[in-house]
């Protein structure tokens, strides 16, 4: 069991997400920085979909009520056990009665706590992730509060023969956590609504992350973009940035009124009536989720072939890391088909 003494700013139970319900209006949710979350599970020998905790900016204080092993990954932060600093990106044994707390976050914006066995909240529609917009999943559908007690489960990788060894990530695999990120975008969707000059401007501009940056999406500040003239299609709405309501892919970039693009993360609204420009490649959403105001974002246009190549590269790197950690990683376990 883990008892929450102080919850931090926003600490949520998250996992790899709840896929297969997009058509019902429900996004996958799950850890925003999937790579850091996944590495946490590897470090403690968990099943790759085991639930952990995601915290934003200020970490929680947690008392453990049994012996276990944890790993802290994601944003750069000092993790303390009974006041003693511990390494990040490594498995750390914790004894019954000991307390985990955090110093200030120095780089990035989201930290992850993996606990051996996983956080054992009920699995709803195939996942333990919290989707706060409808108070669903996780621990009672909400961020953790003081006094919450979370059971630790048995979500341990069944073929992990090295569970007891102390694992530590090779520093060459650490995320950059820089205050700027260049994100790969596949253009498409309603991109034809923008003038060619505005499309070009989008890829040349520096955008700033605004204060409106949360699990649903990040609003960016940048140059105004312009639209191609049109006759208003029936059902679209009069503003040039209005479209007949349509689906928003995860990672898609909508640009209401041509100002302030909004990039959707894993608590995405699944659709709406604003023109969409393109979609950030999924493996780049990890870096976006570690940004905060006033960090900078630039975009690079990539083809679908290049997008899939980048995805493969990220997966191959995870496979290499797993090998180096002697963790029995298999990509097949990554995302279930839920249809």
């Amino acid at each position, binding site marked *: 069991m883990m008892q929450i003494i102080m919850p931090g700013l926003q600490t949520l139970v998250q996992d790899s997400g709840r896929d297969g319900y997009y058509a019902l209006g429900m996004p996958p949710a799950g850890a925003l920085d999937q790579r850091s979350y996944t590495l946490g599970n590897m470090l403690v020998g968990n099943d790759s979909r085991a639930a952990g905790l995601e915290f934003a900016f200020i970490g929680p204080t947690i008392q453990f009520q049994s012996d276990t092993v944890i790993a802290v990954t994601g944003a750069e932060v000092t993790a303390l056990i009974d006041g003693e600093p511990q390494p990040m990106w490594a498995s750390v044994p914790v004894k019954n009665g000991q307390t985990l707390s955090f110093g200030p976050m120095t780089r990035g914006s989201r930290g992850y706590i993996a606990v051996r066995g996983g956080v054992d909240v009920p699995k709803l529609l195939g996942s333990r992730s919290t989707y706060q917009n409808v108070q669903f999943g996780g621990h009672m559908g909400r961020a953790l509060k003081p006094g919450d007690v979370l059971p630790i489960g048995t979500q341990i990788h069944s073929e992990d023969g090295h569970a007891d060894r102390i694992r530590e990530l090779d520093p060459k695999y650490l995320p950059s956590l820089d205050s700027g990120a260049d994100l790969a975008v596949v253009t498409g969707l309603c991109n034809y609504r923008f003038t060619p000059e505005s499309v070009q401007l989008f890829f040349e501009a520096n955008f700033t992350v605004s204060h409106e940056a949360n699990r649903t999406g990040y609003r960016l500040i940048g140059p105004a973009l312009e639209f191609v003239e049109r006759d208003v299609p029936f059902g679209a709405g009069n503003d040039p940035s209005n479209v007949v309501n349509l689906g928003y892919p995860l990672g898609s970039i909508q640009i209401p009124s041509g100002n302030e693009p909004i990039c959707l993360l894993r608590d995405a609204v699944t659709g709406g009536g604003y023109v969409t420009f393109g979609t950030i490649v999924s493996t780049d959403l990890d870096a976006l989720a570690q940004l905060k105001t006033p960090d900078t974002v630039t975009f690079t246009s990539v*083809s679908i072939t290049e997008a899939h190549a980048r995805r493969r590269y990220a997966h191959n790197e995870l496979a290499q890391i797993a090998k180096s950690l002697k963790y029995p990683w298999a990509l097949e376990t990554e995302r279930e088909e839920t249809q």
Partner: protein
Amino acid sequence: MTEMYLQLSGGGRLSFGGDEFIFVELSEEMRIQQALTIQTLARTLTAMNLPGVTDVCPAHASYMIRYIPERVNLPELLATLQEVHEETIMGRPATINTRIVEVPVYYNDPWTRETLMKFRDRHHDPSSTDIEYTARVNGFESIDELIAAHTRHPFLVTFMNFVPGNAESVQLVPRHLQIEAPKYKSPRTETPSRAVGHGGAFANIYPSAGAGGVQLLGRTPINVVDMAQSCADFRERPVLLPAGTLISFRAISEAEYFDIRAAVDADEYRVRVADIEFSVGKHIEGWEAYNDELLEALQ
């Protein structure tokens, strides 16, 4: 593949939503027959259970699929999509196995009225209520005429948009008879749960309280979402009105609103619903008589 858009034969443009989504837009405007084609397409694709495809998401004038790139041969998937797309568009009008659901509405109710009065400064016409405004801009003499039109013919849910359970639906009548209303100039920060709204040509029911930007016409006492699936009407699916469902709105009094609400809270209310085969061909041949036939299923 270097072109941003693939033009599909039969009409429509396909593009990629990053590495996991495929987005197909049939046209930029809302058309009922096109929406019916999209519902048919989505059902066909879902029934095919394509390996690696996790989501098939129909919308009003477009649809989207999500796939796992590692489990999909992309050229093959695109070929299959193109084939189904073309066959559905060119093929004979299909039949959709679906349900018609009665949604009781307390029109011009005190809760939505109280909310919308707080946001008159964001409205095109601060001096009237949303339902008065919607009636007037659609040429109705009174609110009652608007309610009569809203309840006379069924709506088809064409998109589950924004949040779980939010069914956006279009009335199965020709375009010149569709109720149309602009959205607020700037969205409200509040909307009561279960409010029945209208924006553009679409009706919707707010599953829960929150922000919103469409005209508020009334409130239903029944729930449209139950993520925990604890109530009897939601055992098979967490939303009451998935895309492809027909809705028949029925005007109710304040007294009936409270009766139904109490029964819903006790999980004793059962939504009136009937299984139907919706024939796109019959709709095209004679929408008015066919709507009456469909509504009879609820009697």
